[in-house]
């Protein structure tokens, strides 16, 4: 789309001008003509790349674990009402706790290793997938279920062959929303745990004392690109996989 490219070019132009004319002090907000080359040169720096890969890998790992936990849990909660009634109160208590609030405790308890940030990210990423799976089961067309029943499918077969496929688009939407959350939690944890390898720590170190705002912004832009790319990729696969079911379910 040329219009969106023009828009992006305009955005960078405004940023450049704001910085060059000292509308915003260049010291705080270096122009893109400094930040983007800095990003390119950082991508040639093995240590920076290692940090970025560590952040990305932790995010993906957390997302995979969260999916493996949340989808079966959502299927059970969505299809067995007594279990749902019993567990929902606990869930309603846990869900509002922001995972970033657990960072200090988790660092104190489990140390600054990568499993801490993965565990925290799993905690944050579980909820959208769990709820989207659960509500997707509520939305399954009863007529589809009855059709399957009429053809002699048992409870498990209905769940596997009717409920799961019709819930799948919602689940993928949940996964897409959770990616952003997992990335955010991983980076937040890195901001606080000195000595860890990760994008958040790189940015934190650069912002303190060193005053390397070009590195701060380069890292921020890269994180934005990762989030943007993951979102676009998951949206694309949604369209490819579920062409029969245009995007619905909790979006944005």
């Amino acid at each position, binding site marked *: 789309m040329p219009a969106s490219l023009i828009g992006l070019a305009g955005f960078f132009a405004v940023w450049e001008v704001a910085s060059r004319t000292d509308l915003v002090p260049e010291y705080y907000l270096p122009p893109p003509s400094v930040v983007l080359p800095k990003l390119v040169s950082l991508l040639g720096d093995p240590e920076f790349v290692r940090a970025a890969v560590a952040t990305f890998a932790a995010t993906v790992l957390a997302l995979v674990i969260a999916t493996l936990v949340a989808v079966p849990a959502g299927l059970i909660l969505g299809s067995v009402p007594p279990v749902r009634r019993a567990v929902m109160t606990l869930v309603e208590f846990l869900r509002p706790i922001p995972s*970033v609030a657990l960072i*200090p405790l988790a660092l104190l308890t489990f140390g600054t290793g990568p499993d801490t940030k993965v565990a925290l990210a799993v905690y944050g990423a579980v909820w959208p997938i769990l709820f989207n799976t659960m509500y997707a089961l509520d939305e399954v067309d009863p007529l589809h279920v009855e059709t399957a029943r009429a053809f002699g499918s048992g409870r498990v077969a209905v769940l596997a062959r009717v409920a799961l496929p019709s819930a799948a688009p919602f689940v993928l939407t949940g996964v897409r929303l959770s990616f952003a959350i997992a990335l955010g939690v991983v*980076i937040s944890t890195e901001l606080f745990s000195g000595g860890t390898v990760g994008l958040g720590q790189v940015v934190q170190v650069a*912002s303190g004392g060193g005053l390397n705002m070009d590195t701060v912004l380069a890292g921020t832009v890269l994180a934005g690109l990762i989030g943007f790319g993951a979102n676009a990729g998951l949206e694309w696969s949604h369209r490819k996989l579920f062409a029969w079911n245009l995007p619905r379910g909790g979006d944005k």
Partner: protein
Amino acid sequence: MNRLSGVAQRWVVLVVAVGVWELVTRAARSGDTSISFFFPPPSEIAGAAGRLWFSSAFGDHIVPGVSRMLGGWALAGVIGVALGVLLGRSRGAMAYLGAVFNFLRSIPPPLLVPFFVASVGATSMQLPTIVFGAIWPVLLNTVDGARSVDATKVDTARVFRLSRSQWLVGVVLPSALPKVFAGLRLSLSISLILMVISELVGSANGIGNQLVLAQRDYEPADMWAWIVLLGVLGYLFNTLLLAFERRALAWQPRHSLEAQAIATGG
């Protein structure tokens, strides 16, 4: 009797979970393991909460933290809705700006903290961080909602010769309202998260600040008390907003389920 068993069914898991936690940590305490240190019994956490929440910390830390969060959220909401209505109804604006907004929204908001600390300063960066992080769901949802006004309403408004402001406030905004609320709820949970992070990093007061101090002092029960408070606040504000939303959208024939599916995330 039936009603009673329903209540029992609803609460049994939670009560048992807390009870087991209490018993296990109390038993572990005699064995003096680190588990009981980091996971104090719920009764101790409750004690710490009672001591901390209603002390001078209420005025010194809870109120400032909550006002930052609500202030930032409200500011993001007002700017997001106003911009969203205008951009959603202007031809082509989003074709140019959509990619920019989507990119800015993709930046994990916690990363804004180091930037704003360096540029605005550690003591005043909380509000800009919250506003910048929380604005995107409201803005993009409002744009979506504003675009969804159907052709018949456009014609109806033209037939009755509405002025531009009457059109935007009287027709576009109400049409977009269900989506606006979905955005506001997401922004609320983002505001809470950013309030915590920005106070963790560097703030003279606030709930996050107290959380860090408790960490430095090795006071797990206090940390738990603050964590629970954040959960309570998140639940409380979300419930209040939902109640307000139900009233504001009472005209809707069927409240959309999907909007609630992702009420809070993170």
